[in-house]
């Protein structure tokens, strides 16, 4: 039996690989679920099915998916052009903090002014947080992975510092900001439910990214710069300029996500505003194949699992961390199995060894 490179792939191969990876994930995660004293089948049903069976559940899924679409898209935009922005977490937090500035200091603004102002501030905040790593990458060739990663804890410290200092709640004294003015609320899409206009903003961004990536020369250049930077440079594509721009756009998208989260859900800044959305964004972008449609689908899947994990922690006493275990196992399983699809097994005796023939 030997392992050989495949000359060509058939169309069913990638979907089959993903199906195998899902199966592997279910098998691997059944163990810890058992350890926690829950029935794996019941747990999977809670994670993947229950949230989708009621209107209220669906609503929560869309709500939970919204920040994930932003961070997933932010990471995908950057990764696609070969800029490894792992700082969506910090950029998300910076966006939330920036949107809080008008929310607290211009509290009386009417919604027509307030919302664009706060959303714009969020996008600028995220871009600003992504600016330093992008600048260092472009002008000093300093690895963006390290600088974006290091700025994540700094962003969290900044938010905590603001909440313990100038923005401490004036009524309760807790480290949460005061509530924003009335104009700073992203309204619900349907009256009486919680899914807000932020979800539609996310959909618009997905659509724009999809069109740019798939149907414009710019999209093709971005792809070339990401997949074969040397060849792209040779054919006259300004790789580092494209990376620079995508890095800023990526930060802006993540920051907008932070703004949407505070304006749509919390209506105040809290220290726990991002429960690891930036890092989950890396999972989503990678699982979504760095495409806009893929990001949307995977974000909805992980949103479902987030709601399901909360549900399962109450009904099955299964700690919510199980949701992260499942999603990160799924990521590793999918990328692993997908890497195998380039090979095929040959079940026949090795042809007579040519001289110096290798053992494998």
């Amino acid at each position, binding site marked *: 039996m030997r392992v050989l490179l495949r000359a060509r792939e058939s169309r069913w191969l990638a979907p089959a690989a993903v199906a195998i990876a899902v199966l592997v994930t279910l098998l691997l995660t059944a163990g*810890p679920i058992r*350890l*926690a004293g829950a029935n794996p089948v019941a747990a999977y049903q809670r994670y993947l099915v229950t949230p989708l069976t009621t209107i209220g559940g669906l609503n929560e899924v869309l709500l939970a998916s919204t920040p994930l679409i932003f961070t997933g898209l932010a990471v995908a935009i950057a*990764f696609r052009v070969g800029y*490894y922005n*792992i700082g969506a977490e910090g950029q998300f937090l910076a966006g939330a903090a920036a949107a809080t500035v008008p929310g607290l200091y211009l509290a009386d603004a009417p919604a027509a002014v307030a919302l664009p102002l706060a959303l714009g501030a969020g996008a600028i905040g995220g871009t600003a947080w992504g600016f*330093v790593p992008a600048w*260092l990458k472009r002008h*000093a*060739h*300093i*690895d963006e*992975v*390290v*600088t974006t*990663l*290091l*700025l*994540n*804890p*700094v962003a969290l*410290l*900044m938010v*905590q*510092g603001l909440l*313990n*200092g100038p923005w401490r709640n004036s009524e309760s004294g807790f480290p949460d900001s005061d509530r924003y003015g009335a104009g700073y609320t992203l309204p619900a899409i349907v009256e009486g439910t919680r899914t807000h206009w932020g979800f539609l903003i996310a959909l618009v961004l997905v659509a724009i990214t999809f069109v740019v990536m798939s149907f414009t020369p710019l999209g093709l250049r971005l792809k070339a710069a990401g997949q074969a930077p040397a060849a792209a440079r040779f054919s006259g594509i300004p790789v580092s300029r494209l990376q620079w721009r995508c890095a800023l756009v990526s930060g802006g998208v993540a920051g907008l996500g932070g703004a949407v989260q505070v304006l749509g859900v919390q209506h105040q800044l809290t220290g726990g505003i991002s429960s690891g959305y930036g*890092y*989950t964004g*890396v*999972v989503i972008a*990678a699982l979504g194949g760095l495409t806009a449609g893929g990001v949307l689908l995977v974000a909805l899947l992980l949103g479902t699992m987030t709601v399901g994990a909360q549900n399962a922690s109450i009904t099955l006493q299964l*700690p919510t*961390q*199980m949701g*992260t*275990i499942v*999603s*990160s*196992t799924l*990521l*590793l399983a999918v*990328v*692993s199995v997908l*890497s*195998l699809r380039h090979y095929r097994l040959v079940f026949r005796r090795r042809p007579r060894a040519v001289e110096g023939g290798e053992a494998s």
Partner: protein
Amino acid sequence: MNFPLFAILAATLTIATPLVWAALGAVINERAGVLNLGIEGTMYAGAFCGFLATAMSGSLWFGVAAALVSGLLAGALMALLTVTLGVNQHVAGIGTTLLLVAVCNFTNRLLFSDGSQTTTEKFDRLLPGGGLLSQYPMTYVAFLILAPALWWVLRSSGFGLRLRAVGENPEAADAAGIPVAKTRYAALILGGALMALGGSFLTLSLLGSFTIDIVSGRGWICIALVIFGRWQVWPVVGGALLFAVADALQLQLAITPLFSDVPNEVLIAFPYLVVILALAIWGRGVRYPGAYLKPYRRA
């Protein structure tokens, strides 16, 4: 103001210890051509498994052994993903970190769900009585044994030469008969063990207990230190000391009346910013290992 120089220097050595262990683990990985972003999760796993085994068995040495094993396994997982399967190293590393942190927190929640803070015994400082040399055993090992030994291994030993060859030019190494995949596996497993032992320092020497988010970005700092130290053992140790001085200084300033008005968070963020600044000044135009981020396949 009486400047507490010796207190700061003593704290510097303590703070630098987990960084030296983990960053030297990362040096081994990257010299073999693999960027291991699983470092944060591996340190977390080392901290948690060390604590858990000590709490269960009552023996610190069981704790150290458990941390070691968790690091070997985490390194083997990274090796499977990046060497055998050739997965994108950024994605594999972040995925590994997320997985390990979630598994540790999950287990922690299951075993200690009543919220009671379990504490274990912890290592004593050698040469008690304070002063610069009153440090934990792992601090001594890090500076006096690990760093010199690794420096020698990478520079002069056969294993070190093979490791560097595999990280610089796997094609040539392969042609010369060096088993590329095996060498990289060895590098990742050994490096993982050092990272996890570095993490266990936090629970078994410093705290004697485990808290959520105990590693808090130290792994990312190590990745930065490795670039800052240009993949050389002693400069990386120097970088760890630089970060630790900044951290010790901010801890000292936090209890100095003159700085009582400065928000605590600004002081905590200070060492991170020092590392970024140091990278910006001395990290430009560094030469990465030749096969950095590149999986190797025989053509």
